[in-house]
């Protein structure tokens, strides 16, 4: 499969080792999730925000679905470079600074996910919608990438 999981590149604010640790942490989360059925989501003390992304395919299009709750439409960016789709954005905290917080699990700040689609898409016809905190991007396949049925007549 051509779809690769987005690997965080070293962030200027974070040393490389920190980033590797964050990736490792995420891997561990995955192991735990598969063992315990993901009833408990990691509090992610080390990893930054990585929204979950699903991809669907039918003969005409790809549908990419990302869970990004609590965003503003304007805070979401979607770009397509060749057959690589990038979803990014920034989420700001709703809290005022002088309020006391005693439990924080949510992530704020920037996120970015990139994925390579298995075949070419038509960049002119990409459509996106955002509802109930779920971003849906529909990418129609390029004509040349669609499966073709060839009729062979027997003579």
């Amino acid at each position, binding site marked *: 499969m051509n779809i690769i999981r987005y690997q965080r590149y070293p962030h200027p604010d974070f040393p490389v080792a920190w980033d590797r640790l964050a990736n490792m942490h995420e891997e561990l989360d995955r192991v735990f999730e598969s063992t315990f059925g993901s009833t408990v989501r990691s509090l992610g003390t080390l990893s930054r925000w990585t929204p979950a992304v699903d991809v*669907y395919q*039918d003969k005409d299009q790809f549908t990419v679905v990302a869970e990004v*709750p609590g965003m503003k439409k304007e805070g979401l960016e979607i770009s397509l470079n060749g057959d690589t789709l990038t979803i990014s954005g920034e989420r700001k905290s709703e809290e005022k600074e002088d309020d006391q917080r005693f439990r924080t699990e949510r992530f704020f700040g920037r996120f970015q996910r990139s994925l390579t689609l298995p075949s070419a898409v038509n960049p002119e016809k990409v459509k996106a919608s955002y509802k109930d905190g779920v971003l849906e991007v529909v990418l129609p396949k390029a004509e040349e990438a669609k499966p073709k049925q060839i009729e062979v007549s027997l003579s």
Partner: protein
Amino acid sequence: MNIIPKRQSETDHRTRGEQSRQVQYLAPMVDVQSTEEGYVIRAEMPGVDKAGLEITVENGELTILGHRRNLQHPGELIHRESTRQDFRRVYELDPAIDASKISARVDQGLLTLVLPKAERVKPRKISVD
């Protein structure tokens, strides 16, 4: 700490007709904030709209249940990171909270609960004559 999350791992027994089945839930990511007026709980529940929310207060416990909207996407799933489980979280409430005044709203999968303290327990300044 006065709002205490209970039972991180959520398993519920529900009866459907004669059959009893176990329902697995996902704990949403939650921020709890304390203000002078009371508390604000923000829970991330992507795919949950107003109709899918069940919020109850019983025996000093606040239960948040979020049922995901059944989203249908064309074609087959070729890559998956999300889960299909509904959300559930239980909190033990500070007795100072006036349960009748709890308000809730949901916007883009983010549930915001405002839990005001009862008037009698709010801090007040007493001036000396």
